[in-house]
C-alpha cells in the first residue's frame, strides 16, 4: 500500500453508486450530484467536461448519460444516478474542469436533479458500503 488515504475521502452525508458518483439531498426531492474523490483521483488531471445537449429540464431514467469527463488517461461517463428531471448543470466545469479534481464534493458538483421517487434513495450505497466497493482490489 502506497498512500492509504489517497482518493478515499467518502463524506458521511452523501449517498453513492458503484460507478463512483455521489448525491447529496438538499431537500426531500432535490439532489446535487458529482463524482467521488476516488473517481477524480483515479482519472488524474481532468481536462475536459462536456454536457449532453439540451439536458436541462429533461426527464431522465437513472441510466441516462448526463456528461462526459476526460483526463489524459481515461474518460468517464456521468449518469443521472436516479430517475428525475435535470434542474441545473455546473457550467463552470466546461472552462474549469480541474474543479472536479480540487473539490469533487463542492465546487466540482456536476448537476442538480429533482428526483422522481424518493424511495430510490434506499437503493443507493451508504458511505461505508461504497468504501467497501473501492477496497481493496481497485487500490494497489
Amino acid at each position, binding site marked *: *500500500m*502506497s*498512500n492509504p488515504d*489517497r482518493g478515499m475521502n467518502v463524506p458521511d452525508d452523501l449517498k453513492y453508486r458503484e460507478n463512483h458518483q455521489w448525491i447529496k439531498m438538499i431537500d426531500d426531492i432535490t439532489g446535487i450530484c458529482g463524482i467521488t474523490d476516488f473517481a477524480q483521483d*483515479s482519472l*488524474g*488531471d481532468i*481536462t*475536459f467536461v*462536456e454536457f449532453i445537449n439540451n439536458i436541462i429540464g429533461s426527464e431522465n431514467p437513472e441510466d441516462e448519460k448526463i456528461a*462526459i469527463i*476526460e*483526463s*489524459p*488517461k481515461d*474518460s468517464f461517463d456521468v449518469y443521472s444516478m436516479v430517475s428525475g428531471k435535470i434542474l441545473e448543470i455546473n457550467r463552470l466545469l466546461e472552462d474549469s474542469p480541474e474543479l472536479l479534481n480540487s473539490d469533487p464534493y463542492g465546487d466540482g458538483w456536476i448537476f442538480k436533479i429533482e428526483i422522481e421517487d424518493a424511495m430510490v434513495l434506499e437503493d443507493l450505497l451508504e458511505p461505508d458500503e461504497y468504501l467497501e466497493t473501492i477496497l481493496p482490489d481497485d487500490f*494497489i
Partner: protein
Amino acid sequence: MKRTPLYNIHMESSGRMVDFAGFAMPVFYTSIIEEHMIIRSSAGLFDVSHMGEITVKGDSAALFLSRLIPTSMSKLEPGKGMYTLFCFENGGVIDDLFIFMINEKSYYLVVNASTVDKDFAWMQNHIIPGVEIENISDSTAKIDIQGPKSAMVLNKIFDKKKIDNLKRFHFYFDDFTGTEIMISNTGYTGERGYELFIENSKAESLWERLMLEGAEYGIKPAGLGARDTLRLEACYSLYGHEINEQINPLEANLGWLINSDKEYIGRSVLENLKKNGSEYEQFCLELTGRGVLHEGYKVLHNGEEIGCITSGIYSPLFKKGLALIRVKRGVLSIGDKAEVQIRDKGIEGEIVKRPFYKFNG
C-alpha cells in the same frame, strides 16, 4: 503481472499502476500534466525497465543486422546509436528499435516491451553463422532521465566531461558504484535527455541517487502517461499505434529510415513504396473545436471519411487536443481543415506542420 526492479519505489511514490505489456507500470504518480511539464522545463525520471534489450555479437554481427533493417548501417560508428525498424517481406513493421554500436562485433538493441519475444524469435529465425544473440531484458533495468536539466543531474554522478561532450545519439560506458552503466544521449520526449542501462540489482540505488541529485532542479518521477503525451507532442511513433504489422513505414512518416543499399528483408516492397508512395500518409492534426481526441476516431474531409486518429492526446503544453492521423494520401495539405468524428459530432481540426514540438536539444 511482471514487475520491474523499481516496483517497490513506484509503490512508495504512490505510482498509479496499470498493466502495460504484461508489466505493472506507473501511468502517473501525481499528475500527468505536472510530470509532463517538469520534463519540458527541468527534469524527470522514467522507469522503462520493461523495455527489451538484445545483444548481437560476433564476426558477422553487422552483416546479420544489415539483413534485418532498411536503414544504412554506415550511419553507425562505435559509441553511436540509431533508430530503425524490423519489417516483414511485405513492408509491415515488426517493431521499431534502437541499435547501439559498441564495436564492429558487438551491438546493443533496444526494443519495445510488448514485442521483445517476437523480435527475438524473428532474429533467431534469420540467424547466420558467426552471430550470437542474447535477450538480456529480464536482467536489465532502464531509467530515462529527460529534460533540459538532465545533464546537470548526471554531471553530479558521472564523468562530467563525458556527459557534457556526449552528442545526440551517442553513448558511453561509465561506472555506478562499481557496476558498469551504459549512458546514451537519447530519449522519447522531444527534450534533451539520457537513457541509462544497468543491471537490475542497481536500479533502486541509481533511481534514488538521481532523485537526490535532481532535487535542486525539482526532478520528479514520471509515468507512462506523460511519456505518451511528450512523445506525441514531439511526433514520435508508438509501436501498435502509428506503426504495426499492417502499417508500413511510409504511412507513419518513417520513409527516411529506408536508405540501405544492402540486401534486407522487405527491400523491394519498401523501396517501391518510397518511390511511388503508399496508400495512406500521416499528418499532424490540431483540434480547434472542443473535445478530446482518441485513437480510432474517424477523420473526415468535406464530409468524406479519409482515415483515422492513430494517437490523440490533450497536450499539457499547448493546452489543446493534438493527434497523429493516418489518412488517404493526397487529400490533405498543411493548413487544411479536417473534421474529427467525436461520438455523434464532427469537431473541427486543422492540419499543422510537424512536429507539434520541435526537439529542444
